Structure formats: structure tokens, C-alpha cells
């Protein structure tokens, strides 16, 4: 896919905007933004965004492809939907942020060590194994994402939490082996594989 990354993006020309429109979830809405900034002001994690949504939309128009796709801003989205319900132009901003994040990942430009980036992948992989999320394994894999050393530290840090959960029967040690699962895991996985194939085919080349 790296060839896609050689895409030409002249300033204030529509190449990148068109690329977003074609390849990013709900990307065709970006052009409708009128730069009011209500989304940027509505985000609960707003202050942690290097570029808030409305600015990202402007950057897309300005052709700042790398700055957008390499940014970790989109990964700050908590999916609270404040921006969507307040946007006067009806942009599905939450989805566009998700879409941009995913597209950045696809383009191999997403910041590798961005925790939410990593977690969302862990979540997906964990879920793909048996069709349902295994919270215990997900938790552990998250703790150990940066290697064994950090893992132990993280695990210790959250030990009390884990104990509490187990006491409350809201975490089951047995989940570590087996755990909940679909009956038709293979059908499930075939379905998702197919979905990925279709999505890949639909990606347009802008290089």
C-alpha cells in the first residue's frame, strides 16, 4: 500500500479532500464543514487534541496529508457523540474521526505507539478469536503490550482492581483458558475476512 503514500498533495488543491471523500468512512461530509468549531469545543478530551476536528477538516482542504494522517488527534475520540449532535452542518464527526484513524493505520502513517491505536487493535484481534471479547485476556494483553517488564508493572498496579472484580464475580480467572465463544467461529471469521477484502478493493489509489 505504501505506493498510496506517495500521493501528490498540492496546497489548497482538492487531491487529499477527494482521497478522504473516497477512502475514509463518511469522508464525503468533510467538504460541508463551515468552520464554526462547535465540534472542537464539544469534545470531552478536547484539550488533548493537537488538531481538533474542525481544524483537521481545514487541514484536509489545505492538503496537509501527512500532518493529518500522522496526527494522534483522531485517536483521542472517546465516541461521546457530542460533536455529531451539535454540528450545525450534520457532519458525522465521530465516524469521520474513526475513519481517518483507521485510514491512517491502513496507510501505515498512524503513530505506532499511540495507546488507543494499539488498544483498538488488541480489542479487534481479541474479539476475532472467538467472536466475543475476552475481557481478562484483553486486559492482560493491554498490560503486556509494551513487553513483559511493563506488563508486570501494569498488572501489579491494577492488581487490586482485578481482585475487586473477581470478588464481585465480574472477572473470572477461568476465562484465561477458553472463555465465552461463538459456536460458529469459523463462519464468523470467514464473514469478517470477506468484509476486509471488499473494503480493500474499494480503496482508491490517489498516488
Amino acid at each position, binding site marked *: 500500500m505504501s505506493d498510496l503514500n506517495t500521493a501528490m498533495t498540492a496546497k489548497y488543491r482538492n487531491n487529499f479532500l477527494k482521497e478522504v471523500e473516497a477512502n475514509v468512512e463518511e469522508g464525503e461530509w468533510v467538504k460541508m464543514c*463551515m468552520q464554526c*468549531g462547535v465540534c*472542537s*469545543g*464539544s469534545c470531552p478530551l478536547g484539550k488533548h487534541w493537537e488538531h*481538533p476536528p474542525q481544524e483537521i477538516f481545514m487541514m484536509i482542504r489545505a492538503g496537509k496529508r501527512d500532518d493529518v494522517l500522522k496526527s494522534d488527534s483522531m485517536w483521542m475520540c472517546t465516541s461521546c457523540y457530542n460533536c455529531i*449532535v*451539535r*454540528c450545525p452542518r450534520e457532519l458525522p464527526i465521530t465516524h469521520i474521526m474513526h475513519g481517518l484513524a483507521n485510514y491512517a493505520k491502513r496507510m501505515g502513517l498512524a503513530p505506532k505507539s499511540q495507546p488507543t491505536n494499539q488498544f483498538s487493535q488488541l480489542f479487534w484481534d481479541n474479539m476475532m478469536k472467538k467472536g466475543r471479547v475476552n475481557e481478562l485476556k484483553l486486559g492482560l494483553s493491554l498490560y503486556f503490550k509494551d513487553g513483559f517488564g511493563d506488563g508486570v508493572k501494569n498488572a501489579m498496579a491494577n492488581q487490586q482492581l482485578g481482585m475487586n472484580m473477581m470478588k464481585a464475580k465480574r472477572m473470572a480467572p477461568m476465562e484465561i483458558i477458553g472463555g465465552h465463544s461463538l459456536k460458529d467461529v469459523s463462519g464468523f471469521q470467514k464473514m469478517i475476512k470477506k468484509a476486509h477484502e471488499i473494503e480493500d478493493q474499494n480503496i482508491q489509489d490517489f498516488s
Partner: protein
Amino acid sequence: MTEVIATNQTILVVGGGISGMTAALEAAETGKQVVLVEKRPYVGGRVTQLYKYFPKLCFPTCGLEINQRRAKMNPNLTILTLAEVTDLKGSAGDYTASVKISPRYVNDNCTACGDCEKAVEAEFDDDYNYGMGQRKGAYLPHSMAHPLRYVIDPQMLGSEDAQKAKDACKYDAVDLDMQEETIEFKAGAVIWATGWRPYDAAKIQPYGYDRYADVITNVEFERMADPKGPTGGKLVRPSDGKEAKNVAFIQCAGSRDRNHLYHCSRICCMATLKQTHYVQEAWGDEGKSSVYYIDIRAIDRFEDFYRKVQENANVSFIKSKVASITQSKDSGKPVLNGVDTEGYNRYANEHDLVVLAVGMEPSVDPESFPVEIQLNREGFIEPATDNGGVFAAGCASDALDVNRSAQHATGAALRAVQVVNRVAGTEG
């Protein structure tokens, strides 16, 4: 029974605001028979509730005085107040209108001496002041009201107070048995000038108009600034009556917004620029105005006015649609949260008072429009040939300022004149 002499050469004007009055007077002063139907007990409409006009900062009552004198002097013009058109049948050159007239409970014997008002105790929300104050159950809507005649609030009917009002009147002007009536009369052409109403600010939930006392609307601010208004012209915080010196103005409150009104209401930018003058007037350099906007739409010659305000160090402009209003834990004052999009600056600004520049929506609901007519998505009347002899004037056609309304209404008058002149031509 109210008598109205009208023919197919008569022009019916629906709505007695600045547009309706202008259209009616221009037609009447051209020698046409005109019947003007106004829902309120007085003519003048919403401009009577404004303190000043932009860009001259002059007083609406000044023009109103002239228009009302024109109306008083003109034998061609019949004015029906507390009246609404409920139905219109026929076609261009031959309409029959049904008009419902609500009882005023005061007949034309009234000399406006005010004895009835003095006699009654009952008070009700003063709709003229958007409910910010109270008025007696027997009242003169405002000191320039035309007709200069008192009104008995129907809510007072059957009460002791109502009787007191009747007894107080030396001229048998108070008639508590007055009944609603519906009359029919002919008209050759109709000018539809039902105007606008301020958008319901409570619907703009992030701004908490329904939760925070110190968040008000621009129309309420007009009343507040008016020395004849509920606060005697003092700019105060409704919550505690304390001085409001640091005032925020939120533009496009309900306008240009798919959650509310799709359209731009055009006047709100200029109205806000005007209202920053009120803050300046009231507090001098202690008065601070902050305008939160998306685009400042000070069209054509209004740009001068915008520039003057920009030059005022006490007025700041923030390019931002405010995301939400919260309340400060310690001061209890409203806090505006958002992002200044010019260079991405996050803010949480505390203000004494927040004025929502709410937009204009047509005052007649599209669903309950009593006349066959072509409306656009926003409920404004489209200029269309299939509207026959019905012509929109002023804010019934789009969000317009006073000057453009009067201009548009004058044109509408001509289109009505064209129809009745055709009728005259055929009828001879």
C-alpha cells in the same frame, strides 16, 4: 358586528407590523381602499418592541409616530386589530376573506384615560416585554399604541377585577360581554405581511436558556435596554438583579443550523453590533462585549457600522460557535465553552450576562397556513405565479431588516395595486 366595506378593488393586508403598515399606507396613499388585519391589539408589530434601530441608532417609535399619523389621517385605510385571517377563498381579483376578531372588551368610547387600569389589581405577564415584567389586567400595550385604546386581558374575565374595570370607566367603554366574531369581506389582492417570531431559545439545549437565568435572547435584551422596558433601561442579571457589565453575544443561536433553522436570519449580526452600543452606553469603558460568531454579515453600507464597533476596544470578536454554556461553581455566572477557530484557542469564558442572537422564523406555521401558497423549506413565502393575487411583504418572505422590509413591502403594494387596477379596468 364589525362592518367592513370592501370590494374586489380592495387590498387586504394581513399583518400590521412595519411591512404590513408600509404596504397598507403606500397603497392607501395611492388612492386604494385598504383593509389591514392585525392579530395584536395594536399596530406596529415587533418594531414597537425594539429600543433602537441599526445603523442610525435612532428610535423605532419615531417612524412609528409618522406611520400612525398617516394611518389616522387616511380615510382609505381600515384597521382591524385583534383580528386574524382564518380563510381565503377565490382567486386574483376576486377573493373572499374570513376574519376572526377577538373581543377587546373595550369599545371605541375609550379615551385612554387609564381609570380602568388604576381600578384593577390583577397582574399578568407582560407579553410586550416578552414576559420579563408584569402588567395590569386592564392595560394599554405601550404608550404609543395605536389604536390608543385599552385592552382587557381575557384571563381577567369573570373576576371581580373585570367588574372593577367596568365600573371605573365613566364612558361605558368597558364591555365585558363582547363576543368573538368572524366576518367575511371581499378583496381583489392580498398582501401577506405576517412577519416573524424569535426562534424558541429553549430548543438550543447546549445554551441552557431554560436552565440559566442569565442567558437571555436578543429581543429580551432590547426590552431591557429600553428605558420604558421592565428594568427601566438598566442592564442587569435576571438572576440577582446585579449589574451586567461583561456581556457575551452568541451569534447564529438557532440559525444556520440543521438542528434548528437552516437559514441565516440576516439581522442578528447587525442587531448584536447595535446591542454592543447599549453595553457601551450603559457602562462606558467598564462595559465589555464579546461577540462569538461564525461570519459577521454586515452587508453593504452596514460595513461602516461594523468597522466602528471593531474599533471599540471594549468589544471583542471570537470566531467560534459556542459549544456549551455551563455555570461557574463559585460565581454562579454563565461560562461559555468552546474553541476560537482562528488559530485554535480553547476558552472557558465567564460573563455576567449572555445574549443569544436568536434568529427569525416565520410567525405562521407552514402546517397551519390559512392560505394556498408556495412556501420554501424554512416556511417563508416564495414569490410564485401560482400564489395568484397573494403577495408576501417583509419577513413573511425572508429574514429581513426593517429597511429591507419596508422596501420589500412597498414593492408588494405595487403588485397588489396592479391586480386591483386590472379589476378596476374591467369593472370600469
